[in-house]
């Protein structure tokens, strides 16, 4: 495991030094790698608000990934977006890297590291890097209830780079807790917070906070692969955030 951690650190730093990254707005990253598993994944979200500047803000991604080693999964992501009142645009191409730093269940929590580089499609937009820790805690028989629960936390720092960059350092925090009732149906709650500039709090505009229910599930077709889904509704918790957002995730994965 020490070797994996050392290799993970080297790969993270190499990825950060050689590329730039970005993050889908509402996507939970998990620190456990499915070794030798190829996946195709779609994430999407749409906002709802009375204010036209915040209504119908859409984001869609398609991702292709593969568990190259038991501790590293690279993914290539294609980002589409439509800002309120605007047409579709191809937004960015993103190179994501998830590193599993501990064996699942070996420690009090499972730890991973996420680093991605986003190359903006428009010359008017800056490229960006996102990186930070992924933490997951399995809590079986929570509070003696007999229920198994799974808790995931992502803390990702952002940095724009290259031309047209903004020197702010945003921080994105996302958290999900769910009940492992059945592989097909795991209800939970989640939170997404975005803080615009942690390096210069005096210049920070209003952060955004969203929270709401989510359903997560997977259908195993064994040698034919596995289908996974997530569907959630996020309520805006302050005035800087749109009133509601629907988010979803569909994934097909197969081992080779």
């Amino acid at each position: 495991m020490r070797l994996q951690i050392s290799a993970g650190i080297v790969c993270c730093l190499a990825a950060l030094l050689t590329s730039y990254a970005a993050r889908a707005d509402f996507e939970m990253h998990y620190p456990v790698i499915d070794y030798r598993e190829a996946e195709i994944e779609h994430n999407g979200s749409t906002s709802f608000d009375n204010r036209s500047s915040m209504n119908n803000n859409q984001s869609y991604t398609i991702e292709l990934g593969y568990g190259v080693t038991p501790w590293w999964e690279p993914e290539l992501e294609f980002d589409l977006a439509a800002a309120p009142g605007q047409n579709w645009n191809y937004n960015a191409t993103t190179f994501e890297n998830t590193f599993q730093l501990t064996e699942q269940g070996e420690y009090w929590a499972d730890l991973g590291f996420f680093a991605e580089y986003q190359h903006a499609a428009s010359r008017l937009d800056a490229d960006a890097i996102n990186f930070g820790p992924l933490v997951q805690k399995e809590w079986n028989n929570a509070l003696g209830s007999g229920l198994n629960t799974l808790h995931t936390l992502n803390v990702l720092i952002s940095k724009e780079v290259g031309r047209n960059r903004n020197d702010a350092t945003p921080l994105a925090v996302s958290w999900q807790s769910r009940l492992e009732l059945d592989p097909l149906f795991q209800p939970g709650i989640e939170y997404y917070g975005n803080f615009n500039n942690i390096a210069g709090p005096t210049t920070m505009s209003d952060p955004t906070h969203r929270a709401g229910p989510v359903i997560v599930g997977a259908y195993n077709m064994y040698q034919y692969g596995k289908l996974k889904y997530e569907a959630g509704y996020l309520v805006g918790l302050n005035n800087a955030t749109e009133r509601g957002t629907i988010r979803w995730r569909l994934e097909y994965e197969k081992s080779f």
Partner: protein
Amino acid sequence: MKSPLIQTARLAGLALLAFCAAAAPLRAQDNANFNIAIKEHHFEPAELDVPAGIKFTVTVKNLNDTAAEFESTVLNREKVVVGGASITVYLGPLTPGSYEFFNDFDPDARGHIVVK
């Protein structure tokens, strides 16, 4: 003024070091270990008896030439074991019950961890 890229790389390095340092004391204590072998199209043994309320490990040895995947949907575990190799799966503590596992590459191969 340093470039944003160098500043970001430094920030990433510091974050990772702090992260690993925080995780170091959290290692689980030595756990009870159980062994399972994958031989042709079945697990040996197909049933493991494990005490309730403890953390434990299962060493899965693949005696076949081809890869297998130890998987359990109820235990939220999924791990590939290449031919001729072995893996360690960390589990528990579990409440009493029967927890099914299978080889995802050969789903006829199934077994249970029986927690008492």
